[in-house]
């Protein structure tokens, strides 16, 4: 099982505090993502953004949430057999988990390199698969955590503080 974790410099303290306190989420919402369902892909991230907007989260943070969660949702659609998104909302951050049904990432280190892609023809035809998904998520999330292995589920978690 390969694990990768990235915590942005600005978020170190907040993240430590968060893991120490382990607060209960104020709200938790689940979404399903279908295998290669490009028609509906992006809807969950759009809904998450809308909900945070309604809670008064500022536009700059909304932008980060929108970009990171959209990329991650597309990843589940394009590269996995489908899966679930669980969005936990806290008073100071949002924690989103993307849990797919496999087949896992063969080489996680490579997958994190900008431009690296394993996308098949269908995915490329849809205009995705440029190999910028994970790097883009890393850039926009305060905390990004991936665990994966071949023929297993991939679990991607992101945390963005308001």
């Amino acid at each position, binding site marked *: 099982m390969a694990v990768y974790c990235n915590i942005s410099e600005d978020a170190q303290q907040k993240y430590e505090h968060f893991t120490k306190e382990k607060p209960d989420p104020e709200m938790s919402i689940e979404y399903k993502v279908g295998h290669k369902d490009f028609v509906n892909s992006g809807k969950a991230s759009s809904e998450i953004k809308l909900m945070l907007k*309604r*809670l008064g989260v500022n536009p700059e943070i909304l932008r980060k949430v929108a970009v990171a969660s959209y990329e991650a949702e597309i990843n589940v659609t394009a590269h996995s057999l489908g899966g679930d998104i669980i969005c936990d909302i806290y008073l100071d951050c949002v924690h989103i988990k993307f849990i797919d049904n496999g087949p896992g990432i063969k080489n996680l280190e490579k997958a994190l390199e900008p431009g690296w892609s394993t996308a098949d023809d269908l995915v490329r035809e849809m205009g995705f698969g440029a190999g910028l998904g994970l790097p883009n998520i890393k850039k926009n999330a305060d905390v990004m955590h991936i665990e994966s292995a071949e023929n297993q589920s991939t679990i991607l978690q992101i945390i963005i503080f308001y």
Partner: protein
Amino acid sequence: MEQTYFHAIDLINDKCKGCMHCVRTCPTEALRIRNGRVHLDDKRCVDCGKCIAVCPFGAIVASSDPLSIRNDYKFKVAIITAPYAGQFTEDIEYSTTIKSLYHLGFDRVIEESMATNIMTKMKRHYIANNKDKKPILSSNCPAVIRLIQVRFPSLLPNIFHVEAPMSVLSMYYREKYSAIEGLDPSEIGVFVAVPCIAQVAAVHQPQGAYKRNLDGAIAIRDVYNAVRNDLADIRNLDYDFITHENGLSRALSGQEADEVGNDQIRTIAVSGIENVIDILQKVEDHILDQYDYIVLRSCTSGCVGGILNVENPFIARSRIQALIRASKHHDHELDPMFSSYLNGEFDVLPLEPRSIMQLDTDMKQAIIKMKKLNEIKEQLPSIDCGACGAPNCQALAEDIVQGKACIDDCVILLKKNKNKKSD
């Protein structure tokens, strides 16, 4: 003090039968039926005018300034917006329709289309110099500006932050004629013939402008009527002026995008407020970042679709396209004003958000409200019947959470509970 909002909409209470047509149509859910009569939420309304178009009883009407408003001023200037050209049948020449305005007592008639050239140049310059804000959103449609303020405040920085052409024209000609005629600028009345109520609202309460530049907004249909009544007298009158048909593209959403776009500037043209909302959502999700300029118009087909016009928008569009095709390009005295733009003379203030999206200013309260909202939604029947006076169950749930309605307003639930009791 709570800010008040000007709207160019009059509600005629006696005529309202509480039928829900308007409530269902409103893109910002600003209307409710309470006690059998329509109510307007001032903060939510963006003056798109859709409610006026669908009301079968004439209970919602457009308000604009009467033609007689010109009589209050010594020197009268009319600015004619581009859709005006599409209102008349082709046997009436465009130049005749302009001539008629002089005959109606205006001292100068200015076509908004005169500013199209220079506005295109400004837009291209602005787009090239604001790459960090792309896509830039067009600012011509006041209903779209207000829509962004209430529903998409995060996109306010993307708006093309330059005065509207009618304001630029007004500033320029007020100064010019007060010098020529030796009049105080306040003795010069500058009026604009507008295609929609959003423009009326923009004239009376401009967003982001440093000061009000125009003295009145007259409906194109009122001008049309006066001109039609006058036509027989004026055909043979001699006036010396040139017309600017080539700039009439402003009235047509697709055409403007084509003019601004080039190899470096990718554009999208969007018309119809539902389409505009869809596109703004996508801009907010950052999936249209590859575009440079998006032309957004609340009305179908652009300004020719405005509610204060006379002609069907598609017919008007075809006529205007014919006029543009037959036109010659004239350099215009405004063209050298590009330097004024560069000097910042047409800058506008950053636009203020007036978000209707936030459930509460305090995040804790907002979360409590959202949970409560979801609970109430579970109870409601989700059939969006509208009998409560709100456009759908979601909106009623929100009204309840905000203390503007109660759960008993749902007649379906009320009946269900009553049946339970009698069982």
